[in-house]
């Protein structure tokens, strides 16, 4: 038995880190006549599928990927979200 797990890794700038993109978005809100929106932060969402024996095993892989590659711990934090799990029965031999 193995299964596939679809994850989303959401990477966002850490609090206090300058986010010029977020600021630019915020500055444009006035052009849309939208008021009352603040603290815009722009991040990145990476979706991926992991094949593993179970969810904890899959999550170990995603954790490593998220901390070593998808985010830079100096400036970004990440959150892992399980989007979908699909169990696939492998034909027994």
């Amino acid at each position, binding site marked *: 038995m193995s299964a596939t797990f679809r994850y989303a890794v959401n990477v966002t700038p850490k609090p206090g880190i300058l986010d*010029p993109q977020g600021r630019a978005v915020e500055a444009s809100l006035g052009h849309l006549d939208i008021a009352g929106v603040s603290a815009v932060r722009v991040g990145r969402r990476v979706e991926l599928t992991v094949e593993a024996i179970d969810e904890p095993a899959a999550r170990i892989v995603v954790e490593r990927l998220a901390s070593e590659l998808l985010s830079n711990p*100096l400036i970004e934090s990440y959150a892992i979200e399980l989007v979908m799990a699909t169990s696939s029965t492998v034909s027994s031999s």
Partner: protein
Amino acid sequence: MTRIGVVVFPGSNCDRDTLHALALAGAEPVELWHEAATLDGVAAIVLPGGFAYGDYLRAGVIARFSPVMRAVAAFAADGGLVLGICNGFQVLAEAGLVPGALLRNRGLRFLGRDVRIAAERLDTPFTHLLGERRPLRMPIAHGEGCYFADPATLDELQRDGRVLFRYVRTDGAPAGETGDPDNPNGSLRAIAGVLNAAGNVAGLMPHPERAAEGVLGSDDGLGILRSLVEAARLREAAAGPAVVGAR
């Protein structure tokens, strides 16, 4: 002649300029392919500017995991001299070989223009032939050059003399952090280049290789490359036959 390696990643675009400028600085430049697992016995390494691996995800991060970077990290850990220029600085920062990170320019725009920097140290392998602290004119060409580190790290860099270059005004005074056109990208404490703790790995955002001969409008960058080449030559000479044997 002292052989200096220039790493070529897919997407590097300053590798030829760097090879040319290193030759002007008295070295025998050697290309090192990103898939190479060995460094061909070079005496120092330059990571050139460009957009390694398309700068996807974050500038420098994918390059960091290339085979040649394992060899570069081992070379650096052994005291080997490594200089990262622009994208090369971003690769070194992502690899943790120099402290800090390079964020999107404060003004969001990609910037390609001349800036002035000054060396804060004149006794390093990268600056010892500059002679005096004075503004050096050379170009920048980057979208992510805003130097960032947490306040404790910035204080440590300052205290330990590891701020190698700062963006400066015409009189040589450091530029401000925000709203100062002399600090083009809004780098914290106007830092344009830093050293690692051991002092053998350096990164800077401006391009000394693009200011290495009079025909380019400035040769202020040549002193940095000459410093590196001379330091590498001395290091090689001090190591003696062991280095030759290791080839």
